[in-house]
């Protein structure tokens, strides 16, 4: 171990940002429970997550040039102390998570009133904040075991959040139970992987593990650790064919929860995958290349086609969008498997773009469900015409989901196909394009139901109140905005991809 000059670097408020943005939501959760007042609870949650969002923006501004911030918790130097390490990659993901978390909250206030029994409201906000804490923590920490701790915080709170959909449809309970079982298996695999890594290297600090692995080279323990971590995180990321928990969880969870989870939870898991594959393990290892080529590519292709195909035949809009998410995760994973800077930046930028897109769509569906009570296509006839702004937001996001030029989704697709051509993988390029045809089919099905069928007789649906409408419109605007101005998204993603490809060197002290 190299000797590090130990000094307490954090002196100003700005220096403490890496930990504050996790701690503030964390503290807000018990406070909300103590307060017990629904309105104050919401206000506190809103304040805490907005603060976290501002902090994430400040962090990204600091590291966007490719540098990184290493924060030592309590001044204990790593590898003994816990380190938080922020670079362009996780700052971008942090911004996505806290941004979506914040923007969904105003929407949640009304939506929760409609969907969840009153006595659970404060608990809802507390769990929401815990979930946010977990996701933020898992993304910002540089300590492998800490990832597991935060993963569990976010997962456990997610199970309860999903189950809260039971007020509307009791199938939420089985969905949550399914997710609980699957999620626990995933987390267990992950922690077994960590155990093996600890066995092989004797340390839990990611950068330190990376150094040790680089020194000792590959051996069976390291390989086994890699396998466990990939499968465990793959499960949390709903990597095909480990996606079984996702459709039900997304369909039956309360609308606000679905929007929040769809945009953030799987993305955080993919972030952890990226971090381990590139910064902890080294892509130079043969077993890692094989994993990417022989497992990621075929399964991603399967996800892109099979999940999209299944989505086409869904009779429930939320479920359709859930299957579409599984397909979109295929795009992200195939970008990783391309193992070049362009492909990685495509994956990273797609995490953000798809997060925004899906959040918009789920918020839109949620607003319609307020009126129609179910998200079956049959009950949504002509609602786009009755709810013009909601409909417009969903059209913008739907186009982004297909990847029509002028939307965020197009940028991801462009970069992804470009990466495929850089590798000379023209068949992958063609496959990506063909699978987006399936997206055209299912998105257009939604448009036809919303606009081209006649609304039911005496349909009284109107646009939801402003607190619900504005988040939707902001996100829909973002879908368009990031289709033209890619400086923030693609710019950061490129810096992040460079950092990842620098491998464990990027993590070195």
């Amino acid at each position: 171990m190299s000797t590090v000059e130990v000094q307490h670097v954090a002196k100003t408020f700005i220096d403490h940002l890496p930990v504050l943005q996790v701690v503030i939501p964390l503290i807000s959760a018990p406070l909300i429970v103590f307060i017990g007042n629904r309105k104050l609870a919401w206000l506190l949650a809103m304040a805490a997550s907005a603060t976290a969002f501002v902090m994430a923006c400040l962090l990204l501004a600091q590291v966007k040039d490719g540098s990184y911030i290493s924060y030592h918790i309590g001044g204990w130097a790593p590898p003994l102390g816990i380190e938080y390490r922020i670079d362009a990659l996780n700052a971008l993901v942090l911004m996505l998570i806290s941004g979506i978390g914040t923007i969904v909250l105003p929407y949640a206030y009304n939506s929760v009133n409609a969907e969840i029994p009153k006595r659970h409201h404060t608990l809802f906000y507390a769990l929401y904040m815990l979930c946010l804490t977990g996701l933020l923590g898992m993304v910002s920490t540089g300590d492998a075991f800490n990832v597991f701790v935060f993963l569990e915080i976010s997962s456990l709170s997610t199970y309860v959040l999903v189950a809260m959909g039971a007020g509307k449809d009791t199938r939420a309970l089985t969905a949550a139970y399914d997710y609980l079982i699957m999620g626990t298996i995933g987390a267990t695999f992950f922690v077994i992987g960590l155990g093996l890594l600890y066995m092989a290297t004797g340390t839990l600090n990611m950068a330190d593990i990376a150094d040790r692995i680089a020194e000792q080279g590959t051996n069976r323990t390291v390989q086994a650790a890699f396998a466990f971590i990939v499968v465990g995180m793959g499960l949390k990321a709903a990597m095909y064919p480990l996606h079984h928990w996702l459709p039900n969880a997304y369909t039956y969870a309360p609308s606000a929860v679905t929007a929040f989870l769809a945009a953030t939870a799987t993305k955080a898991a993919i972030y952890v995958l990226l971090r381990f594959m590139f910064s902890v393990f080294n892509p130079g290892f043969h077993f890692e290349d094989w994993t990417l080529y022989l497992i990621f590519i075929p399964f991603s292709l399967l996800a892109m086609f099979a999940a999209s195909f299944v989505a086409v035949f869904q009779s429930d809009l939320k479920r359709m969008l859930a299957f579409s998410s599984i397909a979109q995760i295929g795009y992200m994973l195939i970008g990783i498997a391309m193992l070049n800077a362009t492909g990685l930046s495509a994956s990273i930028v797609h995490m953000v773009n798809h997060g925004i897109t899906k959040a918009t769509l789920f918020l839109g569906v949620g607003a319609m469900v307020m009126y129609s009570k179910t998200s079956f296509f049959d009950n949504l006839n002509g609602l786009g015409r009755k709810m013009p702004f909601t409909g417009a937001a969903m059209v913008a996001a739907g186009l982004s989901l297909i990847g029509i030029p002028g939307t965020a989704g197009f940028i991801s697709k462009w970069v992804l196909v470009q990466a495929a051509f850089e590798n000379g993988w023209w068949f992958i390029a063609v496959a990506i394009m063909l699978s987006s045809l399936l997206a055209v089919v299912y998105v257009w099905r939604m448009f036809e139901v919303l606009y081209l069928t006649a609304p039911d007789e005496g349909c009284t649906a109107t646009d939801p109140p402003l607190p619900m409408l504005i988040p939707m419109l902001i996100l829909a605007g973002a879908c368009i905005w990031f289709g033209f101005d890619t400086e923030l998204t693609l710019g950061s993603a490129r810096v992040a991809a460079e950092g990842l490809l620098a491998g464990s060197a990027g993590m070195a002290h």
Partner: protein
Amino acid sequence: MDTSTALYLTMLIPTVAMAGNMVFAARENLRDGITFICAVLTFACVLVILCNVGNGTTGTFALFEVVSGLSIAFHVEPLGLMFAMIASGLWIITHIYGVGYMRGNNEQHHARFFACFSIAIAAVMGIAFASNMFTLFVFYEILTLSTYPLVAHKGTPEAVKGARTYLGILIGTSIVLLLTGVIWTFNVAGTLDFTKGGILEGKIAPTLLPILLGLYAFGIGKAALMPFHRWLPAAMVAPTPVSALLHAVAVVKAGVFTMLKVGIYIFGIDFLASTGASEWLMWLAAYTIIAASVVAMTKDNLKARLAYSTVSQLSYITLGMALATSMGALGGGMHIAMHAMGKITLFMCAGSIYVAYHKTEISQMQGLGRIMPITFGAFFIGALSIIGLPPLGGSWPKFLLMLGAADAGHLIIIVVLMASSLLNIAYLLPIVGRGFFRPVTDNKLPKTYAEAPLLVWLPPAITAAGCIILFFYAGSIQNFLAPIVENTP
């Protein structure tokens, strides 16, 4: 006004028209008046550009960069300027016609209709002035999406089905084939800027060139090259003003315009000629010309017949590009203008017949010419122009294309072009003959002169006159377009 301002205004003004339609949805005279003024202003802006630039080429006006190396950027060059002039000029006429048609026919949702129409025009302007393939692609897709509600306008099951075919083929081809081709081009050439002489020479293996060309040729689904032509007849469920402007001028011409742009500025005519990469495309275009004409003869529905005629005529332009000679490219470019004028006349006449007597099938139009002489007269002139007989505009591009075919040494193509003219006669003139010379069979029809409303019959009369005038100005158009192939022997 400087050129860049005028250029942005050509896209901005139709957008204003769209907003005007949405805001004043309920006040129809105000709304249609605003759109009319916007249409005139748009045309005026194009004329300003024409006065400033003539047939020169301007530098690039980059709006902003989306991804490094890819900008939304515009420039003016002769082919695009001509296309912009046609589209904006005919927008004025079609708008007048559209107002007459929509009111005379009691169609619903006027505001939505004219709003989408305006956006489509803005998209066409973007296509016409795009200075790189990326910008063009963005506006190409906007055009597809903005015309979808127009095709589905009636909301009937057939309209929805037709619109689905329309969208499926256009989006499908553009995403799977065109976008792949564009990204591939960007990958090998490192740029997508339209450059005289092409950007691909020496960058790509000659064996791969026909494949890349295929991605473009089929990917540009709006050019309706067989087998991706089905959307055009399917889109005929739309109200006639849509068919008139969009499917005779804007949408299909955007397709073949893109085809020419790609041939001239991405591949380069010389490069195509020296590698022979486009020869297969030439034969396919020739096949489409003949096959679509044959199909047209079997159609009794007037609009369907005109749709297949369009499929056939569009391939003239694709053929002009694929011949890879300067005469061919010029002929193709000129055919954009001539065919637009002729076909819009035919479509507006079809709409006029529908508004006045709700006839859609040719077999029901016995003797109608004597009741609606202006409509049928205009139809006759338009038909002659499509056939390519002097003294009508349509004769020149065919002449140039034949010269181009002779230059390229493909005499069979000349035979194809002649055969196509004969087929055009066979499917277009009987309609006129039926109208004027057969006895009236439908007793409900009036016995004497009874035209469609003024706003409906006047526009086709104007464009029919345009077909005649263009015959005499073909030389100026040719000179105007000459710079696009100047460096080509």
